[in-house]
């Protein structure tokens, strides 16, 4: 059983295929959707708005998704968890996509903000902000300069701290087996950087970033739960992606120490955080439904009673009912085929979730789920596969010198 990975031809074919499909979709968008023609808020050039809204949805979704891999490493490190060591290189590889997707997302966000896309972010319109009491009150937070600076710092630190964590892990491959003292210092270093990451993750994904990047589309509306809801969405999808790569590698006979027990635990995360997502989704919905204050209900009016009704309930079926009923028992979480199926379902479900976060506020009733939308998603999936493949082929698949490896090998749920 080999500890190194060679990108198989089939994998390469799919990567190139997906990226090619994505580029075709992007070119179609650039030519047919006239992205650089201007459109005012709520009216005008719908196809131009669609181009930017789809790019925004996909870039933010896939960036937050891959970033949760480092969060997974972070909290398992802080909890002194040992069970995940056998599969730790998988989330590491996924988190190595953060800089690439981060730059793409940053470019898209900057084009929207500095291109004055008031159709996406209403608060970019200076006259509207001056005339509007609510928007005027949010001016200190929702303005292009703060948006730019905070987004830049955020993406940089996600990359930088993640890079530190990955470097520490790779450094353990070089040094050979550690004795007690070296291992202790090494684990402590990991804990230090992991805690930096967790704190910063809480400040960004846990609060400000989803407010800035997504919630500010509906600039009048606000929900303090929104960031947690977004986080739960991206985290459960991130765990599903980890599960997919584990199944892929295990099918090729690699990751020798990973067993049913490890997959079972990943499955538990997918199940538990699906419930957690529902909890947040429902708490946000119920409070607004019950209080029935016009400035808040506007957000749900279009989703529950408007053109998004189908998607709104599909979202709940895909992300709550299916995981609850299919993943409740122990055996499905240890069934590799079912875990694969559920992982794909959950990732798709939360992609839809992000879609219904972005589209109603930007496109209103003109949103579409056409090859263009799926093509752009394919582009991002292709990029993730490409970068993860590179990371796998460059470094050993199991961190054999991790002090907790034994604990992971004998892991038993």
């Amino acid at each position: 059983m080999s500890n190194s990975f060679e990108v198989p031809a089939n994998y390469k074919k799919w990567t190139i295929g997906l990226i090619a499909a994505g580029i075709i979709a992007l070119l179609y968008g650039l030519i047919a959707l006239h992205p650089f023609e201007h459109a005012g808020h709520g009216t005008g050039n719908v196809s131009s708005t669609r181009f930017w809204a789809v790019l925004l949805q996909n870039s933010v979704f896939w960036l937050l998704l891959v970033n949760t891999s480092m969060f997974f490493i972070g909290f398992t490190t802080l909890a002194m968890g040992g069970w995940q060591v056998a599969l730790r290189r998988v989330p590491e590889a996924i988190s190595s996509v953060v800089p690439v997707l981060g730059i793409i997302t940053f470019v898209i966000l900057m084009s929207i903000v500095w291109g004055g896309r008031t159709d996406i972010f209403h608060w970019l319109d200076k006259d509207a902000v001056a005339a509007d009491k609510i928007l005027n009150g949010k001016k200190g937070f929702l303005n292009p300069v703060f948006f730019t600076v905070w987004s830049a710092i955020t993406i940089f630190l996600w990359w930088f701290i993640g890079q530190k964590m990955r470097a520490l892990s790779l450094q353990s491959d070089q040094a050979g087996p550690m004795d007690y003292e070296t291992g202790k210092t090494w684990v402590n270093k990991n804990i230090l950087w992991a805690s930096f990451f967790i704190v910063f993750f809480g400040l960004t994904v846990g609060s400000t970033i989803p407010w800035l990047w997504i919630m500010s589309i509906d600039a009048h509306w606000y929900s303090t739960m929104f960031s947690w809801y977004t986080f739960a969405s991206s985290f459960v999808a991130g765990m599903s992606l980890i599960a997919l790569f584990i199944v892929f590698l295990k099918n090729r006979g690699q990751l020798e120490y990973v067993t049913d027990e490890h997959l079972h635990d990943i499955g538990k995360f997918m199940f538990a955080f699906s419930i957690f997502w529902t909890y947040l989704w429902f708490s946000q919905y119920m409070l607004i439904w019950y209080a029935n204050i016009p400035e808040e209900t506007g957000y749900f009016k279009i989703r529950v009673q408007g053109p998004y009704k189908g998607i709104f309930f599909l979202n709940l079926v895909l992300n709550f009912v299916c995981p609850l009923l299919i993943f409740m028992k122990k055996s499905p979480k240890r069934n590799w085929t079912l875990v694969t199926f559920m992982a794909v379902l959950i990732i798709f479900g939360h992609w839809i979730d992000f879609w219904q976060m972005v589209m109603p506020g930007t496109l209103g009733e003109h949103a579409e789920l056409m090859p263009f939308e799926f093509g752009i998603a394919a582009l991002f999936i292709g990029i993730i596969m490409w970068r993860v493949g590179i990371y796998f082929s460059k470094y050993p698949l199991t961190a054999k010198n991790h002090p907790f490896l034994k604990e992971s090998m004998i892991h038993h749920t």
Partner: protein
Amino acid sequence: MAGGIKKFVVGCFEDEAVLFPAVKNVRRAGYKIHDVYTPFPVHGLDHAMGIRETSLHTAGFIYGITGTTTALTCISWIFTKDWPLNIGGKPHFALPAWIPITFELTVLFAAVGMVLTFCYLCQLSPFVKKHHFHPRATDDLFVMAIECTDRTNDSEVQAFLQNAGATEVNVQHAETGWWIGRYDKEQKLYADVEKGY
């Protein structure tokens, strides 16, 4: 009650690392393990002893959906048929408002039901007494009780256990079921005067 008095060969182990191979060997030799008493939950011991998976979670699921059904039927009957009230202009059938209570009742039914079922399965209850094979089983000793039949040669079993690494081996005639009342004096916990602990 219930069980009747049976004869057991009891072996005590100091270390779980010795216990695991011992359990395996005892089962391979064909002896019937009555139970293994450990001071803390030992991962994988149930698999080693060949105990089937518990169906406690199936019971929990049934209790849970009972709670869900109870809550939903109860609230919907009260608020739509029995005593409809206008609360904040909401419809009488106000499902979102009922979800928290439905959730709570689901959890309550599942939790209480599972605890009671667990106690029933383990035959635990206040005032109920069961035989202790060794007082140190609750402290730092792993105690394996092997059930004897008419044809079991108990000195052979004792030798077998000693070979498997047991530090203390003895034969006990013990009540297998539960009773209400007191422990006999010589079974009194933490008061083994002879050994001083």
